[in-house]
């Protein structure tokens, strides 16, 4: 191990420009990946915010007795999908409408709007299918005139989410593949630069595992260093975006560590590909 570390250091020292270049290249390919992940994280967060507003509004028939309504609210409240049930009286419905549609506030008269029960759903139960089922169940109450839940809107939201997730996975994999290719190319240069050592090692009886070790360490270090640099760049970018355009959320600590480990893994993978290919040839 000691020798492997020493050989790694010799590799770095002998070709400092090459090392810096490869770390920078790794950093930028991971940075591209990081930027994309940042967008993905923020899209998901936004969608989660929007999603949390998915609600079913059940309009009540005029003159429904209060006891009946509260009994029904109790029933609805115990549905497993439901997180919150709220009664909205005609007056508060009016106030809300006035607040939301400011310029038309004079148009609304009192008792113009029906009373309603607003139902919020738990996380994980906000997909169109579930929303429709719950709405159907609520509609079956006799005193419910009509149920609204923005059907098109829920559908659309889900489609956006699915597209965003799929795009995220595909682009993420593409960026990761690009990073692996770049890293394996830079390690390949390092392998070429040390072809002589490798041939001598083989000549005097070093095993493939032994020869591979310093390169794997090198790949690991380059991956981690590139990862740290990429993380810093991404953080800087997110700060710039937050300051100038729109509030963005940075990766959580766990996600950042995961990113670094990903960089290290990509580094090890890239170098083991390069060394393996070289060793198969000699």
């Amino acid at each position, binding site marked *: 191990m000691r020798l492997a570390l020493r050989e790694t250091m010799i590799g770095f020292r002998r070709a400092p420009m090459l090392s810096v270049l490869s770390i920078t290249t790794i950093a930028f390919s991971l940075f591209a990946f990081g930027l994309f992940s940042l967008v993905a994280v923020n899209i998901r967060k936004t969608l989660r915010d929007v999603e949390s507003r998915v609600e079913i509004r059940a309009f009540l028939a005029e003159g429904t007795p209060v006891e009946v309504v509260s009994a029904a609210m109790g029933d609805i409240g115990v549905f497993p999908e439901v997180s919150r049930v709220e009664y909205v009286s005609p007056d508060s419905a009016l106030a809300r409408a006035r607040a939301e549609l400011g310029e038309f506030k004079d148009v609304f008269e009192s008792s113009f709007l029906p009373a309603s029960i607003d139902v919020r759903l738990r996380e994980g139960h906000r997909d169109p299918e579930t929303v429709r089922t719950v709405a159907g169940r609520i509609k079956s109450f006799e005193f419910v005139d009509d149920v609204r839940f923005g059907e098109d809107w829920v559908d659309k939201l889900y489609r956006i989410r699915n597209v965003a997730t799929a795009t995220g996975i595909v682009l993420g994999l593409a960026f990761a593949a690009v990073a692996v290719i770049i890293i394996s190319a830079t390690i390949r240069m390092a392998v070429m630069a040390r072809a002589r050592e490798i041939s*001598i090692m083989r000549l005097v*009886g070093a*095993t*493939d595992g*032994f020869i591979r070790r310093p390169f794997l360490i090198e790949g690991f270090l380059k991956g981690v260093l590139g990862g740290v640099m990429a993380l810093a760049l991404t953080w800087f970018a997110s700060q710039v975006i937050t300051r100038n355009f729109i509030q963005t959320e940075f990766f959580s600590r766990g996600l950042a560590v995961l990113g670094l480990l990903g960089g290290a893994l990509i580094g090890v993978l890239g170098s083991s590909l390069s060394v393996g290919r070289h060793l198969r040839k000699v």
Partner: protein
Amino acid sequence: MIRFQHVYKEYPRTGLVLQDVSLFVAKGEFVFLTGPSGAGKSSLLKLVYMEELPTKGDVWVSGVRAKGVNRKEIAKLRRKLGVVFQDFRLLEDRTAEANVAFALEVIDTPRASIHNKVSRALAQVGLAAKGTSMPREMSGGEQQRVAIARALVNDPFVLIADEPTGNLDERATRGVFQLLRDINASGTAVVMATHNLDLVRRSGYRTIEINRGQVVFDSAENDASKRKVEGLA
């Protein structure tokens, strides 16, 4: 110790480089391998240290059989044999000592014993005082001695030398050759490929001549058949 049995070696581009080569090298023997350039000397040596494997036929080196051998077994085998080349193959950015020590380090030799072994090997090749010199500060003959020290440091049973004097002047050639004789005298077999017929003739060692991939002359066989003929007479 080294046995070739009807060995053929064919490369996809250059075609057949060795044809039906059968030979045996005994423990402690000194053997010259001669023949024109491109005759197949280097290919034959590569088969000995298993850089190449035969296309047909089989090779045994110290109990390791080429047929079905894996990379790990080859690595283990190479720890028991030393190889030197015309171009020395030293690491240019390390001292003579470090070059020799490298051969020990990469096979996980205990650190404590490395220093002694390196000093002994350098002393054996007459470079005890040059341990801290860099290869570029040394003459060709000295560099080849460092390479030989590196080959010897693991106490090999055979030293394989591919044109070791090819890059050296007359005096250095004699020096290196004398060193190889001394090494042989202490029990290590030596298989040396060379162009230098002068050296071969004067030495009286067994000589195998290769031409176009075939063994065309083997002084050992000649001696044997001579003995046979004399015995009959």
